[in-house]
């Protein structure tokens, strides 16, 4: 998940979520960066509205919680 967090961090910081950005954030965290994973992440994010995806998350809790005993 560290790759996803790096992407979210960049997004929140108003920076472009590109390979260079993700790599440098991960490196700063002391992570040994896997170029292929960075590429895969950035490719998967193409065309994705991160803000919208985040907004949908809030609702996620409800069904699970409701089902709890």
């Amino acid at each position, binding site marked *: *998940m*560290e*790759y*996803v*967090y790096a*992407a*979210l961090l960049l997004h929140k910081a108003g920076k472009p979520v590109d390979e260079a950005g993700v790599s440098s954030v991960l490196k700063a965290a002391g992570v040994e960066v896997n170029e292929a*994973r960075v590429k*895969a*992440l950035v490719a*998967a*994010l193409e065309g*994705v509205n*991160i803000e919208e*995806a*985040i907004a*949908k*998350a*809030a609702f*996620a*809790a409800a069904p699970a919680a409701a089902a709890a005993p």
Partner: protein
Amino acid sequence: MEAEAHHSTHIPQWKKDEIKNIVDNVHSHRITGIVDVRGVPASSLQVMRQQLRGIVTLHMTRNTLSNIAFNSLPEDEKARILAEHIDGQIVMVYSNENPFRLYKLLEATKSKVPAKGGDIAPEDIVVEKGPTSFKPGPIVGELQQVGISAGIEGGKVVIKQTKKVVKKGEKISAKLAEMLGRLDVKPIEVGLNLKAVVEGDTLYMPADLAVDEVALKGMFAQAAGHAFNLCMEAGIATKDTIEPLIQKATMESKALAVNAPIFEKEVMDIILSKAEVEMLAVAKQVAGKEDALDEELKS
């Protein structure tokens, strides 16, 4: 049939042609099967034959001739084994479909019909209690005679008790069959009943061929769930998983912020309401105790 097999030299030409016809069909089709058609009226059989035309060839012939035909096949041909399944009212089927598709096609021809005297119950036959459409009359006695407890309520005949009238595998008497018919109970399944099918070197029995589609759908759902869970756990970003991954990260972040708590604007309302809920929960514990709560909390 033994006699005929032993005196094959005296077989008339038309029989020889028919035997050759069977052997040719076995060789020219991907699969050959034996189908039990007991109880299927000839007219229904014609309809089924029409419906299957082009996909499955139904070939009605004498059992003796198919027996000879299978036994005439070379020793190493698996289809020889089909001779063992020739018994009763059967037809041969040939198809280029796979055995599973054949099984499904043939299963689709089955329907429920009323029992006749002498039929064997394919499963336990149970008559449910409840109202019937019969007006009071001799029917009450007739039902009683076959062991169905009947009476009259509100001017109608009612079945008083749920009763298993025949066990699976037992013979259905003529009288009971008549009563079941009048009660609209249809315990007999008729249709093309595949007994055995050979494809290449493999003999398939019905049990091998019945695939539970509901269970299969469940397995696909499960497999898809596995893939999804793996992506979530390992953080595998694909077009299909990136949004759920973002959502997972968002929820984890919020959860951490609320539970730690970390004072972030985005979750302050949750943190505050969590504190309030906790306070109210503790207040509930002391509710009713004299003076422990202020007026606002008592209300």
